């Protein structure tokens, strides 16, 4: 019994040894001609439930970088993909986020980080990148919409994410509070509902957006029956909706993402409360861009808000976004599976713009965004079809348009833009 094990061990050790010698050169610097090569890191969960969305986002960024010839001013740009998930967790992992943050700081040629996808991960990354001795190091997120990252929300925010006293976190999406507010405005002005029931998925994003909807709804005179979390592990929600039915609301708002058992929730909503014409149902951008959702027949008449323009709109509108989508389809054979893919490209646009204006150092790239007049990406170049202006004081984008979509014949189609003051 002992011998085979020993043999196995020897083989294993040998394999390890070989691997250690052979590996270690996986990031080859291809910047031979032209100026210095600078690296932009993308920080996404590449395993678990968000894997597809993350892969497509990385691909879209590559398509964009190809379209500009991998150049920003004199510098050659390279994308380095970081994975902040573990298979064990099946989603982003706090320890991996922190470990990656350390790697970004240590990597001499990395000048900025694109990401993270999850607000929770951004909250861990931002303070570390901010304390970079050669920085602060710029971080531009395409999807971390949590309000506190840039604005006062919980006590101590947003200063908590900038311990050096200088900001370094920017983003190209609007925040949860803007979207929730817009949704409440739409509910009151257009749908003219009077009594809403709010459910949330009990996650950072879902709670934040549900709270924003609740606050605004009360201001504009909608009665809010309750704002409570639903159990993501429940096998059905019939009992919950029976209870909700007894309170007789004419609208249901769900703050959360479709991944969190949204299919079942929607099915049971329609079977108990009636179709989406009888009792209006609304959801945020966490319920957009899911082929399964569009296929579900209960999604007929479901209103969803989205920060910016939906992919179909961008294609019709033409311009940079449409070209990117076209190039993407040529390269990968299908449209990206997430609306955030274009936002990833938009975040990289901001970084590229900053690199052009900078001296190629971490500090220079950060200063290009947060000192002086900040970064502007004009509408005709922007991957989101709208002008992107990063406010140097906060790091937020000034574009606050929210579009409202409705589920119709197996697709989410554009209804109207909801302006936010």
């Amino acid at each position, binding site marked *: 019994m002992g011998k085979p094990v020993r043999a196995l061990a020897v083989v294993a050790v040998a394999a390890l040894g070989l691997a250690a010698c052979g590996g270690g050169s996986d990031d080859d610097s291809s910047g031979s001609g032209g100026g210095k090569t600078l690296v932009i890191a993308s920080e996404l969960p590449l*395993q678990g439930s968000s894997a597809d969305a993350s892969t497509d986002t990385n691909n879209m960024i590559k398509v964009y970088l190809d379209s500009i010839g991998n150049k920003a001013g004199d510098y050659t740009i390279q994308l380095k993909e970081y994975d902040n998930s573990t298979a064990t967790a099946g989603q982003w992992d706090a320890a991996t986020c922190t470990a990656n943050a350390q790697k970004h700081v240590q990597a001499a040629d990395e000048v900025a980080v694109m990401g993270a996808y999850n607000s929770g991960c951004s909250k861990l990354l931002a303070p570390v990148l901010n304390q970079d001795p050669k920085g602060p190091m710029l971080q531009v997120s395409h999807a971390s919409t949590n309000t506190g990252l840039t604005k006062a929300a919980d006590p*101590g925010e947003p200063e908590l994410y900038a311990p050096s006293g200088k900001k370094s976190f920017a983003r190209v999406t609007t925040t949860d509070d803007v979207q929730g507010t817009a949704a409440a405005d739409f509910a009151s002005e257009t749908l003219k509902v009077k009594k809403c029931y709010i459910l949330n998925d009990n*996650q*950072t994003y879902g709670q934040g957006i549900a709270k924003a909807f609740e606050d605004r709804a009360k201001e504009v005179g909608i009665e809010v029956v309750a704002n409570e979390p639903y159990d993501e592990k429940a096998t059905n929600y019939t009992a919950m909706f029976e209870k909700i039915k007894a309170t007789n609301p004419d609208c249901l708002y769900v703050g959360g993402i479709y991944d969190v058992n949204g299919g079942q929730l929607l099915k049971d909503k329609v079977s108990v409360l009636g179709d989406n014409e009888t009792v209006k149902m609304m959801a945020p951008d966490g319920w957009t861009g899911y082929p399964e959702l569009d296929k579900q027949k209960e999604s007929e008449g479901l209103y969803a808000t989205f920060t910016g323009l939906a992919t179909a709109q961008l294609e019709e509108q033409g311009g940079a976004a449409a070209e990117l989508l076209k190039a993407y389809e040529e390269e990968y054979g299908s449209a990206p599976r997430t609306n955030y893919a274009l936002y990833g490209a938009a975040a990289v646009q901001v970084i590229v713009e900053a690199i052009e204006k900078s001296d190629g150092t971490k500090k220079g790239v950060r200063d290009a965004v947060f000192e002086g007049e900040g970064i502007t990406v004009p509408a005709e170049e922007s991957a989101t079809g709208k002008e992107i202006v990063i406010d140097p004081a906060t790091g937020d984008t000034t574009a606050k348009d929210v579009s409202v979509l409705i589920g119709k014949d197996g697709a989410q189609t554009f209804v109207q833009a909801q302006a936010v003051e």
Partner: protein
Amino acid sequence: MSTTTPTAPVVRPPAPKTSFLARFGWPLGFFAAGVLVFVFNQWILPETSTEFQNGFGSWLPMTAVNEALIWAIFALGLNIVVGYSGLLDLGYVAFWGIGGYVAGWLMAPFANQVHPSWANLSFSVWGNPLPGQERGIHINFWLVLIIAALVCAVAGVIIGAPTLRLKSDYLALVTLGFGEILPEVFRNGERVGPNGEWNITNGTKGIIGMDQIPTGPFQYIPGVPETIGTFDLNLKFIVFGLMLALAMFVSLRIREGRLGRAWLAIREDELAASMMGVPLMRIKLSAYAVGAAFGGIGGVLYATHIGGVLADRFNFSVSIILLAMVVLGGMGNVWGVTVGALLLAWINSTGLGQLGNVWNDVTGAEVNFASHNFLVFGAILVLFMLFRREGLIPEARTRQVLQEPERGEIESLGADMEGTAEDTAAEGGKK
């Protein structure tokens, strides 16, 4: 104990092997490895080329080393419950969480948010808050370690108490239950109490802004800063390493003492142990308490390692990986468990992905190895169960027990009692 003092001279266990290597080989080996890692990362690595640094960083970054040390502390804690006392615990992650939240409450600005009336609370006991984060409670890191260990010990007793009447599978199920309940409490602890006024965990948003580790008198050594900041990974390595050494030392010393021998007795035969006068209740509870205390220390270290406490981290798979570390390393053997934990933690963080890259480079395949993590773990576990049931570096005692022919089997086969274990096993396999 209420038993009368025996008049006969105390029977001591046979004196341990006295050869120098047998006694000090392992501790000196670990110490040397620690010194090597520190010296290499502190002085040699910065002098090497950028390419080598990047390559090395993708194989064995300092953050992964530090994280592995913390995993090892947890594994040693679980080893006391599972390895020493034989109480199968599937909910050990609960103590990781409790330790983490103790750190979140006592060394972060979060305490301001616990109740509206605490908004102006500012309390510090030699605390080291991050600049601009002086609100809330800031207790010195080293004190928090002690507090967390005590809190977790109490929690261990509370969780352990109702499980005492249960055995084997039933015990495992109840601990599994606790391991599921506590993370849910952490996730939902944002609005509790009357009117939902109390925010005890900040829900899924978690607690961010952990205090730094003060170096105390060591700051007078040139090159050592007053507090260990975000980027002083090598100094954190020393702190975590010291805590691991402490955990190993405590594990080893307790094992030799009365308590440790009582644990082993319970593990081997509970009925016999109680007949011999081992107070089952107290001994089992102390196993839970000591094991949980390690978890508390690890939880605080982990919170400072990642700079926050996030509820999503505390899921069931963590308990399972910890159990795998203990089993693979060699249940009951401190050295084995430590080696197993360091190894598995490395595989889980960077190892598997990197080995996968090498495999892909060599064979031209495009397999995402990291996402087959559990498949690989499962395969390793099965292989170990087939070929090396006692673990990587087994405890001498476990090896004896496992290699001893099982009596029932032998009797039913009518085999020769003198036959070697392997013969018997082979015959058992033929059935």
